[in-house]
């Protein structure tokens, strides 16, 4: 038989003024399983808690009900008290007779009656409570960062700084990401490479950091504290340990017609290449799609010229398996494909470029050595039109519904830099709104308008028509002046929307981390847990979570590192014991529960069951990983057979509460 103790708190007069606490204790004391019922002025006081502890020992209580303030207030207090007296803390239930009774009712009779019902409800529930023990799981003290852009680099450096091992997986031959392609940064106009490359070097030199460049995550298993990750190291046909990065091979390679992706195809590179001068690791890579030796076995020049004998045409993809306690997603972004925006003639004219292409055209390490020449005929452009929001804030399927956030500022930067370097150039910017929230941002924009006389036109460009001489006729409208504009431009620059990298979707699937409809990773809480994924042990850094500029990215990267460090310093993780549990005798293995689990806590296993006729039947059953489950209970309702239940909030318990309330 259950032996329940009931304790009714006066909370000074907070409860006692409206609820007849004596009567509540007396009435509840008559409930069948209640062996002691008392009321006291302040149950949460030391004296009150001692009263509870003494009763637990004296009456050998199997359950405890405290009628007091909200469980959000003192549930932890009473659980601790129970535990210290030897009663499992999860055998404690609170009846909320303050916030949800005495404070909202005036009539003593009514409030007292309600307090009794709430007390009975708690008694009904506590009788069905089972002792729960919080489980523990160890933590592997190593973090994985997926993506080696500025976000990944910063997170890795911060984690390594705290003394933990970090691995960076980067799918390109070098780390650096988008920031490495950028010329100058707003609003300070300092050189991106100058601030990025030292960090890249730091990564390479930090003995806690391992860089897996030209690599991809192939498979992930496990859970917070205990991930196991398989990393695919793509064959680069150059031995990283031998290559000195001298670059001789890249000069001698006869295959010269390979579009240079670092310069966005604006110029060419060789089949063996180092993406850019400051690449980390500074190692050559053979592009198997273009290398004659790899394609038809005819060439072998690079092997001949390589003094370090680093070339290996027979190299194969290899796999590394590594354990991690935490995984950081820093998969970054790409500009969207704007081929669908036919009205801007992007695919018809070389002189219509994206902002990132302009970035390369203006970069000293770019195709024109830093001189702004238009692609078609390498002439100095005299009139440049910038079009904002190409694919951002878009309500059709060609673009994105969200604001890409960075375009207003980088366009101001571009306009300003062009006007600074080539004052004779006319610069027009067509915009919907100019958005400049950020430190020194609006000042920066105003400088572009006021100091550099950039023509900002509120309005849209309707059509860009290429002419035979390479010039472009831009048909636009000025909404403020209310007139139509026709501009004969030398170049048009499109501020293409940014979107999460295409690889993010498959990574999210592997990590069972949730994404929004735009493929940005969802954070555990939009305000309070912005750098964590709802999936425990998965952290978010940079644009993979949503559009950001560099300072924000770095801030988030560091915040993310802080969260990772907070996890890795723990030796063991305590798990919430109120987790889902599947009764495998009832489970059908239908996968409904898995589909609604936001944490990927449910997996399936083929298990043998003994049948009444003594044979064994194999059945697929759900298994809940208690370390990952957060106890929301979504699976319990998705389960048609009722096999899935939630400890601490079991079907039976909630039904008993319903019954007690409705009685």
């Amino acid at each position, binding site marked *: 038989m259950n032996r329940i103790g009931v304790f009714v708190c006066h909370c000074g007069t907070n409860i006692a003024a409206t609820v007849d606490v004596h009567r509540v204790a007396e009435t509840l004391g008559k409930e069948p399983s209640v062996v002691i019922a008392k009321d006291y002025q302040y149950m949460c006081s030391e004296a009150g808690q001692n009263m509870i502890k003494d009763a637990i020992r004296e009456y050998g209580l199997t359950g405890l009900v405290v009628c007091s303030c909200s469980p959000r207030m003192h549930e932890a207090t009473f659980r601790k008290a129970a535990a210290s007296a030897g009663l499992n803390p999860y055998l404690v239930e609170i009846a909320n007779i303050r916030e*949800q009774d005495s404070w*909202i*009712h005036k009539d003593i009779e009514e409030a007292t009656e309600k307090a009794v019902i709430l007390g009975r409800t708690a008694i009904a529930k506590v009788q069905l409570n089972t002792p729960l023990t919080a489980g523990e799981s160890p933590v592997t003290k190593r973090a994985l960062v997926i993506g080696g852009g500025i976000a990944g680099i910063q997170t890795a450096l911060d984690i390594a700084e705290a003394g933990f091992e970090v691995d960076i997986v980067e799918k390109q031959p070098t780390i650096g990401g988008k920031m490495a392609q950028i010329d100058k940064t707003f609003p300070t106009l300092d050189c991106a490479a100058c601030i990025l490359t030292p960090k890249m070097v730091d990564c390479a030199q930090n003995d806690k950091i391992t860089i897996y460049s030209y690599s991809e995550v192939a498979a992930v298993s496990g859970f917070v504290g205990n991930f196991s990750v398989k990393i695919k190291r793509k064959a680069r046909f150059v031995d990283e340990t031998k290559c000195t990065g001298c670059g001789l091979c890249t000069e001698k390679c006869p295959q010269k017609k390979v579009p240079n992706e670092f310069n966005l195809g604006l110029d060419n590179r060789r089949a063996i290449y180092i993406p850019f001068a400051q690449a980390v690791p500074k190692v050559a890579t053979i592009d198997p799609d273009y290398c004659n030796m790899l394609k038809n076995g005819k060439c072998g020049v690079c092997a001949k010229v390589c003094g370090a004998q680093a070339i290996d045409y027979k190299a194969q993809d290899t796999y590394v398996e590594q354990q991690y306690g935490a995984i950081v997603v820093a998969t970054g972004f790409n500009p969207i494909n704007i081929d669908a925006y036919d009205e801007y003639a992007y695919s018809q004219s070389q002189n219509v470029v994206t902002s990132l292409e302009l970035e390369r055209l203006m970069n000293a390490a770019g195709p024109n050595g830093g001189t702004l020449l238009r692609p078609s005929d390498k002439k100095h452009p005299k009139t440049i039109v910038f079009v904002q929001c190409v694919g951002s804030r878009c309500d059709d399927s060609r673009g994105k519904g969200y604001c890409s956030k960075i375009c207003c500022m980088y366009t101001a930067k571009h306009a300003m830099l062009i006007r600074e370097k080539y004052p004779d150039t006319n610069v027009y910017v067509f915009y919907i709104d100019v958005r400049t929230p950020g430190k020194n941002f609006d000042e920066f924009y105003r400088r572009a308008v006021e100091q550099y006389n950039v023509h900002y036109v509120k309005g849209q460009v309707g059509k860009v028509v290429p002419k035979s001489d390479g010039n472009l006729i831009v048909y636009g409208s000025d909404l403020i002046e209310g007139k139509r504009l026709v501009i004969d431009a030398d170049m048009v620059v499109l501020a293409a929307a940014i979107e999460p990298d295409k690889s993010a979707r498959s990574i999210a699937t592997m990590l069972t981390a949730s994404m929004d409809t735009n493929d940005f990773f969802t954070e555990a809480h939009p305000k309070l847990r912005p750098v964590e994924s709802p999936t425990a042990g998965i952290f978010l850094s940079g644009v993979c979570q949503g559009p950001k500029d560099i300072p924000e990215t770095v801030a988030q990267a560091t915040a993310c590192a802080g969260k990772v460090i907070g996890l890795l310093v723990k030796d063991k993780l305590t798990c919430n014991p109120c987790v889902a549990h599947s009764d495998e005798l009832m489970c059908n293995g239908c996968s409904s529960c898995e589909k609604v689990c*936001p944490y990927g806590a449910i997996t399936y296993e083929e298990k043998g069951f003994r049948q009444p006729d003594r044979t064994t039947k194999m059945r697929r059953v759900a298994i809940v990983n208690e370390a990952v489950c957060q106890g929301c209970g979504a699976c319990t309702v998705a389960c048609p057979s009722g096999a899935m239940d939630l400890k601490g909030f079991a079907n039976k318990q909630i039904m008993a509460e*319903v019954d007690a309330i409705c009685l």
Partner: protein
Amino acid sequence: MSVNNEFRPKIVAFCCNWCSYAGADLAGTNRLQYPADVKIIRVPCSCRVNPMFILRAFQRGADGVILCGCHPGDCHYTSGNYFARRRMTLLFSMLDYLGIEKERTRVEWVSAAEGAKFAATMNDFVDTVTKLGPNRRLEDLRCKN
């Protein structure tokens, strides 16, 4: 009608621990009154509420059942209330289809900061159910005597 004047409905409110339950607490802290006919059951998330609980409440004599959860997008567990929303929409639609008064069931999104909304919602719901009178169409006669 004199009968209705005396009729006090039994209302079961399932409240998400992270939002509406806290919202109810806030209503209390601010001393915002609503009828004592409402009794709250704390659940970890609105997605924990099984349709069977709702039918059970009606079986046992409840006259109205209300489910309160976090505003869409604000679920502590990211997606729970979205699932709850679909489940309850379909369940309520089915109850209505069977001719059971649809006003006896409701879903409201109440955040931890919306104490006033919680109280107002409960006042309104109790009012609605009181006007409907006792639940007859989904009662279990065995529980009545």
